[in-house]
């Protein structure tokens, strides 16, 4: 069933032309190559950015782990001195690494961990996966294989043959492992220390680190055996275990009985949750002005939902992001303009006439043109150069809009994230989505959050304002100078208010002293008066100020947080075809099958097939008819009945000349068609042959009509 096709050596393509593929379909537009390289460089930037994020996030965790290892290592060294005392315990130092449910992301963490360990601490690191270790023997085999291989890497290749031979021959047991370890450590000891010290920074003697990538999937027996055996030898072999845990640390105790888990000296390490990881990634990728490419609301929504509802995998999120970039640059010829501002002018100037036409065809641009006066309209639609100038201006505007958008979004987030019940969402991504979706100030949630903001107390308000000032100061946009000034003014006003308040405080207290002497009746009266005055009185100064602040924020929002698709030329920078993305990442094969079988008209645009409601036409393809008929049956289907029914339908669909002489042959053909349709259904997994009764098939799906 396998066939290899090899082209003759001559024809073989030299360095593959990925860019060539890119151009293939878009041979109309000459910018394809440029577009492709923009796309690639953008993606590479983003990739390195995400890797950096990942590294930063893991740094804390890894540092902790390293310090843990060093401590455990110390213990081992001490062992030499406190030999007897340590012997009693025989505890294996163990790190339990809680990594969260997104197992697919763990690989990256483990890889960086083992790299770090191998570079800094010990050459002897073994990564074990449950699927490789169905038994203790396989585990030992794998472990020794990895350890001895890495010893080759660490040593110079002088005695490679020796190790290679021994590896295949050696009996996989703990004692041979210890023998190996001794020989290796002795060898390094005996080597000239000066040379060694310079070449490696490993601790002496280096511990052996065994990482269990997915602790939950290991069989308990294997784990127990391994732990018990190795605890016997802990004084000879400085072993350190690291468990990768996806669920909760409780699992250790569930997997291992007390007698075994007491042999471990466990320390717990918690990695950052994947949600926080995602927030950082979004923060760094989407809410930054570093990249010209942006995601539209629906696309972002799809990606976030895939993350939240399906896998919690940041890797997949990034993969989706990559796909977005690719799609955008592939399908949008104007994406050539999706570049840094520096390059923009050059690229715009080199636009061809076709590309200019493409710009004119953009819906957002058309809306823009309609708003212009007639003279300008004509110029825009006819003169390419004028169009180019205008485009450049508009795109610059768009970039500026994005800078400002981000800053103001963060400011708004400062406010909304502290409101009770988070009407606009807790995370900044929720707010981002809401703002991209439509004009956020028209939503109810925004209204209610403003209401709530009007009830904030002063200290909160002041800290928020200070945060906003910081955000705006750190942003690169120049437009915010005024805003910052205004906010600072608010802050000083609050300050003044405080002082004024204190002064007034003094006067009130003196008033109170006066009131002490009045009798009950008077007191009541004055209180009533006070109350009345309070009701009728204008708001206090503080309240006034608070209103002012909130109004100011509101007006900032209205000015800067306009949804992106209201902006002219947003199509160039924003990718918004969510359907494509979802089709590729979160496909529903079963739905597609269902549609094809129930409603063939969806795919085959033939009027005959058009039908309303749940029924299908009797002229539908055979498999649809057979499928529809089988839906009417229970668990078992009699083939004869089925054939009969099928024949009835097909005969009716074909011309009513069923009684012609060649009916026998027609019968055979129908029979053959039936067989084909049924075996297709079997291939698709709707039925399977059944032995329960002769000539019956069993249905494999539920439900129907």
């Amino acid at each position, binding site marked *: *069933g396998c066939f290899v096709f090899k082209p003759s050596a001559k024809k073989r393509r030299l360095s593959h032309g990925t860019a060539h593929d890119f151009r293939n379909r878009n041979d109309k537009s000459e910018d394809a190559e440029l577009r492709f390289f923009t796309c690639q460089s953008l993606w590479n930037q983003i990739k390195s950015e995400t890797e950096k994020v990942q590294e930063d996030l893991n740094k804390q965790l890894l540092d902790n782990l390293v310090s843990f290892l060093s401590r455990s290592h110390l213990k081992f060294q001490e062992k030499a001195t406190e030999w007897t005392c340590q012997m009693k315990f025989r505890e294996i130092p163990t790190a339990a690494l809680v990594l969260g449910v997104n197992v697919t992301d763990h690989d990256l963490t483990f890889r960086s961990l083992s790299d770090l360990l191998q570079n800094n601490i010990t050459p002897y690191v073994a990564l074990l996966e449950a699927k490789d270790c169905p038994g203790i023997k396989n585990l030992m085999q794998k472990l020794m294989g990895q350890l001895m291989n890495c010893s080759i890497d660490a040593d110079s290749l002088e005695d490679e043959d020796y190790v290679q031979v021994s590896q295949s021959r050696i009996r996989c047991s703990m004692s041979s492992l210890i023998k190996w370890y001794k020989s290796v450590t002795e060898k390094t000891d005996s080597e000239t220390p000066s040379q060694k010290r310079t070449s490696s920074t490993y601790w002496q003697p280096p511990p052996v680190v065994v990482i269990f990538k997915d602790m939950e999937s290991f069989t308990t027996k294997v784990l127990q055996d391994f732990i018990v055996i190795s605890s016997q030898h802990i004084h000879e072999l400085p072993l350190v275990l690291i468990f990768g845990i996806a669920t909760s640390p409780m699992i250790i105790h569930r997997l291992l009985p007390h007698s075994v888990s007491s042999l471990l000296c466990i320390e717990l390490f918690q990695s950052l949750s994947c949600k926080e990881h995602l927030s950082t990634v979004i923060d760094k990728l989407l809410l930054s002005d570093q990249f010209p490419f942006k995601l539209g609301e629906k696309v972002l929504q799809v990606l976030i939902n895939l993350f939240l509802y399906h896998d919690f995998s940041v890797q997949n999120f990034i993969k989706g992001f990559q796909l977005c970039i690719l799609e955008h640059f592939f399908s949008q010829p104007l994406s050539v303009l999706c570049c840094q501002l520096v390059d923009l002018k050059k690229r715009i100037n080199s636009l061809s006439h076709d590309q200019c036409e493409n710009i004119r065809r953009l819906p957002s641009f058309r809306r823009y043109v309609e708003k212009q006066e007639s003279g300008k309209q004509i110029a825009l639609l006819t003169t390419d150069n004028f169009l180019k100038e205008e485009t450049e201006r508009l795109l610059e505007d768009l970039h500026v809009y994005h800078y400002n958008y981000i800053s103001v979004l963060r400011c708004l987030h400062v406010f909304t994230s502290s409101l009770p019940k988070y009407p606009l969402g807790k995370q900044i991504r929720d707010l981002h989505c809401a703002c991209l979706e439509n004009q956020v100030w028209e939503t109810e949630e925004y209204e209610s959050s403003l209401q709530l903001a009007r009830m904030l107390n002063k200290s909160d308000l002041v800290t928020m304002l200070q945060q906003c000032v910081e955000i705006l100061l750190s942003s690169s946009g120049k437009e915010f100078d005024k805003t910052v000034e205004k906010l600072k003014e608010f802050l000083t006003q609050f300050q003044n208010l405080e002082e004024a308040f204190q002064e007034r405080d003094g006067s009130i207290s003196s008033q109170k002293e006066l009131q002490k002497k009045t009798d009950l009746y008077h007191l009541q009266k004055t209180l009533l008066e006070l109350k009345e005055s309070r009701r009728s009185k204008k708001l206090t100064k503080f309240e006034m100020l608070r209103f002012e602040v909130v109004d100011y924020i509101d007006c900032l929002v209205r000015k800067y947080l306009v949804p992106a698709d209201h902006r002219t030329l947003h199509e160039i920078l924003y990718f918004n075809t969510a359907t494509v993305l979802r089709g590729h990442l979160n496909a529903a094969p079963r739905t597609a099958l269902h549609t094809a079988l129930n409603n063939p008209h969806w795919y085959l645009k033939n009027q005959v097939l058009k039908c309303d409601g749940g029924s299908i036409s009797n002229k539908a393809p055979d498999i649809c008819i057979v499928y529809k008929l089988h839906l009417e049956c229970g668990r078992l289907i009699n083939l004869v009945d089925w054939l009969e029914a099928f024949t*009835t339908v097909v005969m009716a669909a074909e011309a009513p000349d069923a009684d012609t002489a060649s009916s026998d042959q027609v019968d055979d053909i129908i029979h053959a068609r039936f067989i084909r349709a049924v075996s297709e259904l079997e291939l698709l997994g709707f039925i399977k042959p059944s032995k329960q009764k002769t000539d019956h098939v069993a249905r494999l799906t539920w439900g129907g009509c």
Partner: protein
Amino acid sequence: RAEGSDRGRHRALQVKFVPDEEVLKHIADNTGVKARKDKAQLCISAKTFVKKLENISDNKAQEILEDKKYIAALGICAQDPMENGSSVSGGEIYSFQTPKRSSKMAELAYELAQTPEQSVASDHSKNLEKTAKSPDSSRRNTLQVNTDKIMCLFAWKWSLIKNEFVSTTPYRLRKRLAAPDSHLESESEYSASCSEEEDEKDQQEISTVLSAQKTPAKTKAASTPPPRNSLAKKIKEEKMSNLVEEYFEAHSSSKVLTSDRTLQKLRKRRLNQETLHDLLKKAPLPYAAEIKELNQQHESMFSKWLLQLHLGFNIVLYGLGSKRDLLEKFRTSLLQDSVHLVVNGYFPSITVRSILNSITEEVLDHTGTFRSPLDQLEFITKRFKEDSSLELYVIIHSLDSQMLRGERSQQILAQLSSLPSVYLIASIDHINAPLMWDQAKLSLYNWLWYETTTFSPYVEETSYENSLLVQQSGSLALSSLTHVLRSLTPNARGIFRLLAQYQLEKKDNPSYPGLSFQDFYQQCREAFLVNSDLTLRAQLTEFRDHKLIRTKRGADGVEYLLIPVDVSTLTDFLENEDEDV
């Protein structure tokens, strides 16, 4: 034919106008006129069915609502009217199985057959359909009418085609009469089944023109519904629990309601693979133009696929219809100049090992064997990492085939596909194919999904399928039989012949348990084929190892021997043998 169906329609009319109260009364006092009772039964069975249908649709409505919520939560509901699926919700696709009668199939067939020639339909049926359209209780009426109509139609047809069939029915009825199942009430509609099915009964009845013998079993079947009727509201409230109950109801009894008819009785000759192929060639492929258009749409994606493959994604194609031709076209148009591997996953003897072997041996030019597929994979990984100029396109037709769907195979393929210079493009067909992959494998595969519904017939894919044993197993089994037998000693062949002949003699006995070992030994001795019990046993072990015979222990502890091949194949086999000798 016209006469028959006319009669049927009259009957349908009568049935329809029996008022409910009357029906109930009849059932209550159980002393109605025979004929009327009959009708009542029919009417009510139809009604229960409708009731069930209603429940189902209620459930479904709720499910759909929930699904909608979920979809809305996913933020995907509104945005794609154009995309696939026409917003089919999960509930429609995955609802529970409900107990059904196979008459429904016939009924639907009839409905489907009727649709285009509505003008031909008689006045009677037109009237009926009109009244049926009145909003209240419309469904019940149509259903009822249709069931009756279809039953009559089939009854008439079948009684013409196969007299022997009709004649067998009374026997079963008699058998049923003997069965003392008076206490069964609610279960009657299931217990009644096993051997027989509703519409057969009716058919029998009608063919004997309403004067058939009245069976107690039938009245029993009729007495189920009334309590349910009154519980209608309650049932609606308990939708959820009801759903569960229905599921277990459908799966609780091992007996299933289907008719007993077999293909053999149909006197239809079996088709082997070749004739099937020829016949299908004669039948024109419908909607060729539309299918071609679909394919062209897919073909326009080719360069995009290639691009995405190069960028580290792998591509999986799904959708109804064979994707073989599409992939072939992709291969011939774009991959001619590069090394590529085509794997026919549907091939019944394909294994991961053979895939890996063809990579190591033919692509990497490595001679030598490996201890395990994992070692082999490691070797491949190493080679691909070392040599960055090495590239390989892998095309797998039906990645979800029987042989490749195993966990280990998928793991290995996934790891293979995760190599940066191995580009995998595969197709899947099975509805449950995505269940093969867990998160880890999915991330290794790094799929991009493409819907490629082609509607083209699965010619190659199903030609290996041993599926419809009915039609094609014959030749395969026969050839394997003769092959194995040829390699045996003449004595062994004689022994097998003996068994085969004996089995053929007993072919008319449906409860033939097989030949008991003692009898067989006796016969073999008489034919001078064996001289001791032990030699025969040794011989039988050999047969069993080749799956030529099956042994079964009877209730009395005696060993019975059986050739697990159907009668016609066995006959063919004996004929062939005779020719050889």
